[in-house]
């Protein structure tokens, strides 16, 4: 039996079946939480608040979902907005909270390239990413988030795909320049 679609699950939830929401959460909460951590510079508490608030909005406005965009896009859009709000509110604290080393640890730490390049190089890249402005940083994290395709990322940001790609290109250039400056 095929798994029900996201929209079906949402409809079931609107009809009063909370288990449907749980299924949706099983599908999307871990990747959204990971994205929120990245967007909020590794602050786990803020990321949890952002995702919880995302679910609150989903519960409140589930009946208003009209299916124009995919549910996944809709969920990520809400999550991204919540992350932006919390980041703005806690800008000072988010900047002072250095990226938690543990939160950035890869799910698979046994990738050979990490041990080959070294932790120092990885740290430089992370620092360079964190020094980018919020818009570029957001583009980079979204586009390289495993849970989203470029099309879905563009939908979440409410941008055309072409615009997304051009901004991604600009963000990567800015990151490279930053890395070059640090190398010098």
């Amino acid at each position: 039996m095929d798994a029900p679609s996201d929209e079906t699950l949402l409809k079931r939830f609107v009809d009063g079946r909370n288990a449907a929401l749980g299924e949706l959460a099983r599908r999307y909460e871990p990747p959204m939480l990971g994205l929120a951590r990245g967007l909020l510079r590794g602050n786990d508490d803020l990321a949890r608040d952002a995702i919880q608030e995302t679910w609150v909005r989903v519960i409140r406005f589930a009946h208003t979902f009209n299916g124009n965009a995919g549910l996944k896009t809709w969920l990520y859009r809400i999550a991204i907005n919540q992350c932006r709000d919390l980041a703005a509110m806690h800008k000072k604290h988010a900047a002072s909270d250095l990226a938690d080393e543990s939160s950035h640890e890869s799910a698979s730490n046994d990738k050979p390239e990490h041990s080959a390049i070294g932790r120092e190089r990885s740290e430089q890249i992370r620092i360079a990413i964190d020094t980018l402005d919020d818009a570029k940083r957001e583009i980079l994290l979204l586009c390289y988030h495993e849970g989203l395709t470029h099309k879905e990322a563009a939908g979440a940001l409410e941008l055309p795909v072409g615009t997304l790609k051009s901004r991604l290109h600009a963000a990567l250039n800015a990151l490279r320049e930053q890395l070059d400056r640090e190398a010098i």
Partner: protein
Amino acid sequence: MTTPVDTHIESILRDMTADAKGAPQLWRRALRSTTDASKRTLWSSFMHNLLHRPLPTAAMLIIAFSATIAAIGVSMPSLSRSRAIPTDKRAQINSMTVGDSAFRHDEGLYNLLIENDESGKFVGQAKRTPREFVSPSTTDTPDAAVDLSYSLDSYAGGSIHDEQHQNTLAGRGRRATPSDGTADSSAHSHPTGLPGSTPPTGERHVIRRATIEIKTTDVRGAFLKAQHLLETGHGEYVQDSSIRGEVEDARAEMTLRVAAGRLSAVLNALRELGDVQTEYMTGEDVTMQIVDLEARLRNEQRVEAEVLKLLETRQDAPLEEVLKLRQSLGEIRTRIEQMLGQREQLGRLVSLSTILVLIRAGDPPPVEADSLWTAFCDSMSSAWRNGVAFLGDVIAAIVRVLIGGLVFWIALIAVIFAIRRRVLRNAAK
């Protein structure tokens, strides 16, 4: 074509957004917090703000409370100062009574009685065309219907006492026969009650007392003029008098005893001395007392005459009887003398009316208008005083609300704290 750096960057970026570990739990919390969302929409928003944004919420509450308390303070009636309403009833009465023309310019007698009721309210006002004043004192003229007419211009309620009016309506009055055509010099000549005099049937004996308050710039002058109004030939005299103060504070009082028939004339003359502030008159009907006295007197005199006759005819009676008769005669004579004395006193009171004259200084001349600056300073001073007074009233009202509702404030705070504790506990779970 990706460079090694790009690959490394990609790897780092993916690591930064890697999926979180562990079972999803945040959706449960969200679901729990949004349970009964319809009931708690406004309330939960308020509590959320209270917990997470205490300063703006507290500021909003303080502003709301202050505005409410200020509105209560403004609307509370006890805040406004009660002003004593001038209750000089007499002045009010006088200002409403007959105008100058009736008092001063019209000739003839004028009799106006206005009394206050027990509560002090103005009870009546009568405006009459002056008519001849008929002295109620006894005269030798035969009974005659008194020709008096009254026109009641306004009636403020209560009752109007006019002894003479009542007399007229009740029965026959008596018109004194003036010697010069006016009733001012009516034949109030001799006081009634001379020994042996028998008042005609229906005669009224009224003791009149009048009070008049005059305001004038020349208190001393009016004081002296009032004394000269009396005619000693009629037995009139100044019973007592006093004057004190200077210029603006000068006050004079005097009690005049004037012949009953000249009462109105003297009052008319007194009115000319200044601005009449108050005036009223009372009459005490002592007719029954006099009639009773005279009846008893006649009886005693008759008894005395009989006893005297008995003494004359019974000269040969035993000594003891004679002595008893003489003793009885003495007692009768004592009683007769007492009654004569009472009758004479009543007669004097009836024949000589009493006028209490109060004279006080008039208002000072109007002060020249203040300069603009003085007026401004006065206005600011008054505004400052009123503002401070109002501020005091508002603060008093706030204190009253806070202290008066202390029990409710405490209960409210306890409820808020309990709810807050419960919300925090739920949020922690």
